[in-house]
C-alpha cells in the first residue's frame, strides 16, 4: 500500500470510528436528561432505572469518544501537516470553540455520572442538560470546520498562501448550516434507532416489561422526529451541493454526461471506463427535478471536469445510495410510529412492529458512515475544495502505512471489546433494575 493511500485510509478509519462515538455522545445525554426529567416529574422508578442503565453505557462510549477525538486532533497534523499549516489559522476558531464546548461537556458529564448521591436532583438533571447542549454545540463546530473544506471562504489564496484571513467568515461558510443540521439529525436518528432497536430485541427475547417498553418509546420519540426531518435537510443539502460542488453532485448521482433533462440514476454499478452505470434504475428528468425543482433543467455532469479533478464515482455513488435508502427506510418507520402512536397505540405492542424496530437497529449508523463517505470521498481529489489537493497535503514521512496498520488494529480490537462489554451490560440489566422484571 502506498503511503498516500495509507494516510487517507487511516484518516477515514479514524473518523469513521470516532463518528459513532460522537453521535452517541451528542444524542444520549439528551435522551438521558429527558428520561430523568420524566422521573423527576412522575416519580416512576422505571425512568430512573432507564437513565442509570443508559449512563453506564454512555460512560464507556464517551471515554472512547474522548480519546479517539484527542487522537484526531493530532492525526490532522501527523497525516496532513501541509493542510494544517495553512488551514490552522483559518479554521482554528471553530476548533477552539469546539474545544471549549467539549471541555464543558467533559466537566458536566463527570458531574452527571458521579454526582447521583452528592447533588440536588434538579442540579443533577441540569448537568445532564448541559452535557447535551455542549455535545450538540461541539458537533456543530467540528462540522463547520469540515464544511469549510467543502466550501472554503474567509481568505484569499495568493501564491500558495492564505492572506486576508477572516476566521468568522470561514466558520460561517456557505456549507456550515446545511452540513451541521444534517449531521445533528443524523446523530439523533442513528443513536435513537440503535437504542430503540436493542431494547426491542430484548423485548423479543425476554418478553415485554416496563423498562424496555419505556426505553423504546423514549428513543423513538427523538429518532422519529429527526428521521422525518432528515429527508428535507438532505434535499436542501443536495440543491446546495449542485451549486457549490457540481463535481461532487455528479459523482454521487453517477452522472457522467451533462444532461438536459437529467435522469435520476438509482442503484447500479458505475463503470468509469465506459462512463455509464450498469444495472441501474433510471427515472427520466428525476435529477433535474431534485436539484433544480424543474423536470427539464440542465444538470452538470462529470464530463465538465478534467479527469484529474473528478472524485471516485464508484464509492461515492454506492455510499450515497446506501445512505438514501437507509434514511428513507427509517423515515418510513418513523411516519408509521407517529401515526400509530396518535391513533392506533395497540399496534405498537404487536410482535411484527417490535421485530421491525429491532431490525432497524443498524441502519442509522450505516447511513452515518455512508454519508460521511459521500462527503469526504466526493470532495476528492481536493482536501480544500478547489484550493489544495489531498496528495499535496500528505506528510512526507516514509512508512505511513505502518501507522495505518497499527491504528486500524487498535480500533478493531476496541470495537470488539466494546461490543462484548455492551453485551455484558445488557445481560445484567434485569439483575440491577427491578423495573426490568415487571411486566
Amino acid at each position, binding site marked *: 500500500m502506498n503511503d498516500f493511500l495509507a494516510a487517507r485510509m487511516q484518516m477515514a478509519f479514524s473518523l469513521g470510528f470516532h463518528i459513532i462515538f460522537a453521535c452517541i455522545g451528542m444524542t444520549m445525554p439528551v435522551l438521558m436528561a429527558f428520561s430523568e426529567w420524566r422521573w423527576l416529574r412522575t416519580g416512576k422508578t422505571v425512568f430512573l432505572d432507564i437513565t442509570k442503565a443508559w449512563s453506564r453505557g454512555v460512560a*464507556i462510549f464517551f471515554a472512547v469518544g474522548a480519546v479517539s477525538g484527542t487522537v484526531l486532533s493530532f492525526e*490532522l497534523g501527523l497525516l496532513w501537516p501541509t493542510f494544517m499549516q495553512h488551514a490552522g489559522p483559518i479554521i482554528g476558531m471553530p476548533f477552539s470553540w469546539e*474545544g471549549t464546548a467539549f471541555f464543558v461537556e467533559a*466537566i458536566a458529564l463527570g458531574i452527571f455520572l458521579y454526582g447521583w448521591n452528592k447533588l440536588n436532583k434538579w442540579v443533577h438533571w441540569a448537568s445532564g442538560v448541559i452535557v447535551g447542549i455542549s455535545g450538540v454545540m461541539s458537533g456543530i463546530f467540528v462540522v463547520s470546520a469540515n464544511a469549510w473544506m467543502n466550501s472554503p471562504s474567509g481568505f484569499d489564496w495568493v501564491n500558495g498562501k492564505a492572506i486576508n484571513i477572516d476566521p468568522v467568515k470561514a466558520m460561517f461558510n456557505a456549507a456550515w448550516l446545511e452540513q451541521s443540521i444534517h449531521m445533528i439529525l443524523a446523530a439523533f436518528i442513528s443513536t435513537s434507532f440503535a437504542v430503540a432497536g436493542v431494547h426491542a430485541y430484548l423485548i423479543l427475547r425476554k418478553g415485554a416489561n416496563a423498562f424496555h417498553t419505556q426505553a423504546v418509546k423514549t428513543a423513538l420519540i427523538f429518532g422519529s422526529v429527526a428521521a422525518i426531518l432528515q429527508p428535507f435537510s438532505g434535499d436542501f443539502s443536495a440543491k446546495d451541493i449542485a451549486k457549490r460542488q457540481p463535481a461532487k453532485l455528479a459523482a454521487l448521482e453517477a452522472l457522467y454526461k451533462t444532461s438536459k433533462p437529467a435522469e435520476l440514476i438509482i442503484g447500479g454499478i458505475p463503470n468509469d471506463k465506459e462512463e455509464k452505470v450498469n444495472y441501474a434504475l433510471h427515472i427520466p428528468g428525476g435529477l433535474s427535478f431534485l436539484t433544480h425543482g424543474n423536470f427539464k433543467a440542465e444538470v452538470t455532469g462529470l464530463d465538465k471536469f478534467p479527469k484529474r479533478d473528478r472524485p471516485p464515482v464508484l464509492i461515492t455513488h454506492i455510499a450515497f445510495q446506501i445512505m438514501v435508502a437507509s434514511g428513507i427506510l427509517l423515515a418510513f418507520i418513523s411516519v408509521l410510529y407517529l401515526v400509530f402512536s396518535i391513533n392506533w397505540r395497540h399496534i405498537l405492542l404487536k410482535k411484527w412492529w417490535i421485530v421491525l424496530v429491532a431490525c432497524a437497529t443498524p441502519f442509522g449508523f450505516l447511513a452515518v458512515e455512508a454519508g460521511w463517505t459521500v462527503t469526504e470521498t466526493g470532495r476528492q481529489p481536493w482536501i480544500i475544495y478547489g484550493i489544495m489537493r489531498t496528495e499535496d497535503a500528505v506528510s512526507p514521512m516514509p512508512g505511513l502505512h505502518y501507522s495505518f496498520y497499527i491504528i486500524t488494529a487498535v480500533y478493531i480490537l476496541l470495537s470488539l471489546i466494546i461490543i462484548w462489554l455492551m453485551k*455484558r451490560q445488557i445481560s445484567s440489566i434485569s439483575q440491577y433494575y427491578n423495573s426490568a422484571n415487571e411486566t
Partner: protein
Amino acid sequence: MLTIIIIILGASFLLYTLLGGADFGAGIIESFAGKREEVTISKAMAPVWEANHVWLILAVVILFTAFPLVYSSLSTVLHIPLMMVLLGIICRGSAFTFRHYDIVIDKSHKYYTLLFRVSSFVTPIFLGIILGAMMLGRITFDTTKGFYEVFVAPWLNLFCIVMGIFSACLFAYLSALFLVGETTIERERKMYVRFSKRFMLLTMLMGLLVFIAASIEGHDLLSDFLHSVTSLITLILATFLCPVIWHFLNKQKNKTIYLRIGAGLQVSLILIGWFYIQFPVLIKMKSGSSLTFFNTQAPESTLQQLLIALLAGLILIIPGFIYLFKVFKIKSNSQ
C-alpha cells in the same frame, strides 16, 4: 494579544502537566501498590480524568491555530513519538473506563489493568521525549538526509530518554502526593507517604541526570540556567520546597492542602524556569535557527478570534472545573 495567548497556552500546558500528570502517575503508583489501592485510585480518578485531559486538547488547538508552522513541523518530524503518545492515550483511557464500568468482574479485569498500567508508563515517557527533542536542537526538515536522521535521531538519544523518565517520575511523585489526601485508611495513607518520598528523591535524581545527559549530548543546559536569573531562582525555590514537603509528609495528620499546593508550586516553578530559558523558542533546529512564537504566529485576525474564543471559553470552563473538583474532591475529603 500574542502575550495573552502565550500565557493561556502555557497555563494549559502547566495544568495538563499537573492534572493529567497526576492522572498518568496514578497508573504508575498503582503498579507498585496492592489490590486495595487500585480501588482508591480508580475512585479518585474516575470523575475527573476526562476533564483533566482536555487541557491537552486545548493546548493542541491553540498551537495549530496560533502557531501553525510549529504544529505542522512537530507532527511531521516527531511522528513516531507522537504516535506512541496517541496509542498510549487511547489504550489508557479505554482500559481505565472498561475496568471501571465492566459490570462483571472476571479475568478480563486483569488485562484492562495491565493495559492501563503499561500505557501509564509509556505515555509520559514519550511526552518527555517530545519535549526533549524540541529543546535539544537536532530537528531538521531536510528529508534528503535519510529516514533515520530526520525522523528518528532528533528524539532517540540519551537526553530525550532521560527527559522521558524524568517526566514519568515527576508524574508519579505528583500522583503519590495527591493520593495521600484521597484515602481514609491509615495503612494506605502511610504507603502513599512512602511513595511520595521515594518518587521525590527519584525525581531529583533524574533531574540531575537531565543536566548530565544534556551535557553528554552537547547541550549545555546548566549554563542556560546559570545565565538566566529568573530560571535559576525558580530552580532553587523548587528544590528548596522538597524539604518543606518532606516535613509535611512526616506529620501524623497530613495537611493535604499544603502538600498539593507545594507540589503545584514546584511543578509551576520548574516549568516557568524552563520557559524562561526556552522563550521565545518553541523548536530548536539543527541548522541553528529556530521556530519561535514570533516567527510562526498566525495573522492578527486569527489571534483575535482565538483570544475571544479562549476567554469566553475560560469563563465557562473555570467555574465548571472548580465546581467539579469541589463536588468530588473537597466534599469527599471532609466526609
